[in-house]
């Protein structure tokens, strides 16, 4: 499998004074479900449009397969897009919309008819061939947009926050369907969203962007467990942060002197040196609470919410600030204002430079 099926090298794109993408180097493997996540304005949509050919980079090169497509316009790239607003042609019915790209390829009528019908079956819209876009629900429109792009058998399918306009239940349902379709069809999906959970539920690999810069690329687990930057740590899931300095470095294992006092063990990327300022990240589910405030760091419960499968707690720990804790299962209940002892395992802390 080609690990760098879609490649962006040194790509930079600005719009007037605004730099949307700065010197981006990104390699996307073939055949999987790849997501680009980040807050609004981070450049993820611009990146997508650059791959689609709807924008040209100011500098850098873009490769799809082994072809340099940098200067090739959108209508000549083997790449298709599912737009955020679906962009269905209002003057054409469902069938004509789906067939649009095939007509441009000058395919014989019979082939168009067959492939269109096949694709409509795949997205479960058989029976609505003659409908106009405005007669369809949001979820149905989204599926037409998907069918329209997929029917051309593109090498890469780009999806620009296609589920944003749908309600939660529908979104989850379609997430499952998208993942399913990707597996069946085998086309490389590149999916853009600001919703980290959505990306995680569908993707094989995830890229995190902020302000036009690529922060990290990896599997969802890698990105969550071993964030490369502070931004990634806080954007992906919740994080408790402790600042401190490295006191001992041993390969990927470190001891860190926290600014608040104690010294703890932690893991981190290789290459950190003693004396280096770092931030310690502890996920809420890794914070342990004992009713005995002597067992660990003393803290007071300032907020507690019962969410069903988990409990969310907020603790005030004095010099370490506010902490968030997630408790699972039938662990002992810590009521409001209770004084508790907080601690975490050595293996639970991760360092970010």
């Amino acid at each position, binding site marked *: 499998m080609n690990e760098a099926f879609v490649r962006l090298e040194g790509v930079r794109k600005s719009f007037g004074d605004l730099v949307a993408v700065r010197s981006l180097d990104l390699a996307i493997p073939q055949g999987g479900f790849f997501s680009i996540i980040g807050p609004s304005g981070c450049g993820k949509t611009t990146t997508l449009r650059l791959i689609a*050919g709807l924008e040209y980079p100011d500098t850098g090169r873009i490769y799809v397969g082994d072809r340099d497509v940098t200067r090739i*316009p959108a209508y000549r790239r083997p790449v298709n897009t599912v737009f955020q607003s679906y962009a269905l042609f209002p003057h054409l019915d469902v069938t004509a919309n789906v067939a649009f790209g095939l007509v441009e390829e000058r395919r014989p009528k019979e082939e168009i008819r067959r492939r269109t019908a096949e694709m409509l079956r795949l997205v479960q819209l058989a029976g609505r061939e003659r409908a106009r876009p405005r007669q369809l629900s949001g979820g149905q429109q989204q599926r037409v947009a998907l069918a329209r792009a997929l029917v051309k058998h593109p090498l890469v399918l780009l999806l620009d926050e296609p589920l944003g306009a749908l309600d939660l239940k529908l979104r989850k349902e379609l997430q499952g369907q998208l993942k399913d379709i990707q597996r069946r069809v085998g086309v490389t999906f590149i999916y853009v969203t600001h919703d980290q959970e959505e990306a995680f539920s569908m993707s094989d690999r995830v890229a995190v962007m902020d302000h036009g810069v690529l922060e990290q690329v990896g599997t969802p687990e890698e990105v969550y467990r071993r964030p490369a930057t502070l931004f990634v740590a806080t954007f992906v899931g919740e994080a408790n942060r402790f600042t401190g300095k490295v006191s001992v470095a041993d390969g990927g294992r470190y001891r860190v002197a926290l600014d608040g006092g104690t010294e703890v063990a932690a893991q981190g990327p290789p290459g950190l040196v003693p004396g280096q300022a770092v931030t310690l990240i502890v996920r809420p589910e890794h914070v342990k609470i004992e009713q005995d405030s002597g067992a660990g760091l003393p803290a007071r419960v300032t907020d507690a919410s019962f969410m069903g499968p988990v409990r969310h707690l907020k603790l005030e720990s004095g010099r370490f600030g506010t902490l968030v804790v997630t408790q699972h299962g039938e662990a002992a209940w810590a009521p409001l204002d209770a004084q508790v002892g907080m601690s975490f395992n050595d293996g639970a802390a991760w360092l970010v430079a």
Partner: protein
Amino acid sequence: MRARRHLLTGLISALVVLFLWAPLVNAGINSFNRDILMAAWKGATLLWYRTALADTTVKAGLGQTITIGLATTGLSLALAVTGALWWRRATARGRRLFDLLTYLRIMMPEVVFAVALFLLFSKIGFPLGTLAVIIGHTVWNSAYAALIVQARVLTLDPALDDAAADLGASPWRVFRRVTIPGLLPGIAAAGLLAFTFSFDDVVTSYFLVGNQTAPLPVVLLSMIRFRITPEINAIGMMVMVFTVSLFGAAFLTVSRLGRGARRALSLPSLADQ
């Protein structure tokens, strides 16, 4: 991909805009031209403007035009506002019928309407003249005014009426303190437009004025039948500046009517019939 050059369309566009402006600029320049034949530029002068302003027919025509304009604006606004207030709470079917009447008045070829009214007046013995012209203008002016005021009515938030009532205002007070102020921009825009349409009108005025003082456009019509004189150019320039200013003012007022009103005005809502 967006920033593509539009050379051909740009060129055509430039030529078209030139085409639109050239005759007016030409006429404007010639209004200052000392050469009475306007065959060549013979120096700048205000002679023609002085002549025009001294011409009694022109002055009478202007007076008549203004009189008619003010009268028809007042009447048209009265019809438009009452109609719009009814329209606001009317059933969908009522609105459709009312709108049909409005659009018929707008779409009717002016010649047809003018001769029809001429026919009516001559057969019932109603004298042609200033009053007849005012009546005629009001028929179609009230339609344009109605469109604008109705568009403004659409943007009135019914919750404001409820809020006023909740705070103790009787229906009449609600009307005075909430509805009318809300409609004011629409009324202003409609008024400006109505006056300008009336000021500019030729056909209805021509057919209905009979032997009485001709309004300015009709005066101009007879003048340009014979020969274009620089005096006509001068009158034309003054009229042009005046109508452009009025339309400009109306346009600016319409721009302030609010998005809902503007959307309602951009294409006729005939689909609702």
